[in-house]
């Protein structure tokens, strides 16, 4: 019987984390921020059909960066989790915190027990009922199951430090168009200009009915990008 080679657990985890980070860094980043009427998610995405930002439930949205098939699998699982929970209890019992914990459990499980970690970083956002935005939540979940809750804005993807630096901090939630311009210029940097066709922007907006998720069309986006 062959004895397996001994590899220190620290080394295994480090290798997996490096692998996942490399995979995530290959894709484009995205920014989510609170604006005066809800939460906006702004992704650099040249595809008009494969989406990074989607609706999970009435007031909950999902966004992912990294490997498309992996975060899409998580997105669908999230929709299923939310719909089942809403069906067996009530719509108001579906919340982002519980969903974020479920995602963290799954990602953590895959990270430590499977051959290959998932090369994704995901975001679960929920808007509260309160006009002031007091109930808004942004959960940032990493490939290894680490969950962070963010206050005003969050950057997902490979170059988070650079982009966060360019984005700066929002003191108060901006108007939607102002926020989008700031986020897009942070995503683009100084050398590039991003147009509506390079972007995918969706919002969770208060006051538009039960389903608060709404995608911005190219026209609306182009109008927001021109000050």
């Amino acid at each position, binding site marked *: 019987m062959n004895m397996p080679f001994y590899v220190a657990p620290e080394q295994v985890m480090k290798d997996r984390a490096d692998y996942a980070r490399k995979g995530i860094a290959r894709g484009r980043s995205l920014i989510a921020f609170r604006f005066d009427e809800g939460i906006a998610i702004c992704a650099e995405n040249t595809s008009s059909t494969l989406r990074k930002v989607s*609706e999970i439930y009435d007031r909950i949205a999902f966004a992912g960066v990294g490997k498309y098939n992996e975060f899409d699998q998580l997105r669908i699982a999230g*929709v*299923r989790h939310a*719909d089942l929970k809403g069906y067996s209890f009530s719509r108001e019992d579906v919340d982002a915190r519980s969903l974020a914990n479920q*995602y963290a459990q799954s990602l953590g499980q895959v990270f430590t027990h499977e051959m290959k970690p998932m090369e994704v970083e995901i975001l679960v956002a929920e808007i509260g009922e309160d006009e002031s935005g007091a109930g808004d939540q942004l959960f940032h979940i990493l490939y290894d199951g680490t969950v962070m809750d963010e206050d005003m804005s969050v950057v997902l993807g490979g170059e988070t430090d650079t982009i966060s630096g360019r984005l700066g901090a929002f003191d108060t939630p901006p108007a939607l168009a102002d926020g989008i311009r700031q986020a897009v210029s942070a995503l683009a940097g100084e050398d590039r200009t991003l147009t509506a066709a390079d972007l995918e922007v969706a919002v969770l907006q208060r006051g538009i009915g039960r389903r608060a998720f709404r995608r911005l069309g190219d026209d609306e986006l182009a109008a927001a990008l021109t000050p």
Partner: protein
Amino acid sequence: MNLPLFRPHDDPGPSFAELLRRSGFEEAVTVNGSVPVGDYRHGTTCVAVRYADGVLLAGDRRATSGNLISHRTLEKVFPADRHSGVAIAGAAGPAIEMVRLFQLQLEHYEKVEGGPLSLEGKANQLSQMIRSNLPAAMQGMAVVPIFAGFDLGRGDGRLFEYDVTGGRYEETQHASTGSGSLHAGTVVKLGYRDGMDAGSVTDLALDALFEAADEDSATGGPDPIRGIYPVVAVITADGYTRLDDDELADRTQALLERRRAQ
């Protein structure tokens, strides 16, 4: 409740009913033996009419258990999604549960697939749900809905009638269901004209339900004392809109005055 992740070979796809089954939720209750009619609630008359901007759905508010009025404010007209609605008649319990599952199915499909079903696809989904209720229908717990919606592809309102076996029949002008449907249907048939506007089609539907309530004990008439009026909804290119009670109160008042003058 764990995150429902499935292997590719047993993935339920965009079907919510299949997801419920795979997740171990109980199937709908099947009835063994017959259920005495007085032991459960029945919802009655609904009408649907096509008009210039789309379709209108209307339903009375009465639920009966045998010879008793069990509920005066039952709603029988529901939004199915943004551009469609469903009106139900028959056993209230299974009917309302069917509507709830139908609404979830349409929304679930839209979210998983990233786009809504076609109107025809929605009509077929409802057909399958009615068919799966057939064992209960054989025991008397029949659910017979009308499905109406605005077909964004065609730019036109469409409506579908069903029978208890899930048979689906598209109507071009109007449809009615429930115990008062014979009377309500006749009123609509006589008053219908091509390209009616929203106001006249609402009056026609209120008139139809009024006449049905006059002839059928299981259909409730308007109740100005308690402020109970039929539920009326219109579905146009802008989506599903339920008319508010103030407008219905005014139109009912006008209807009553017309009747008094006759």
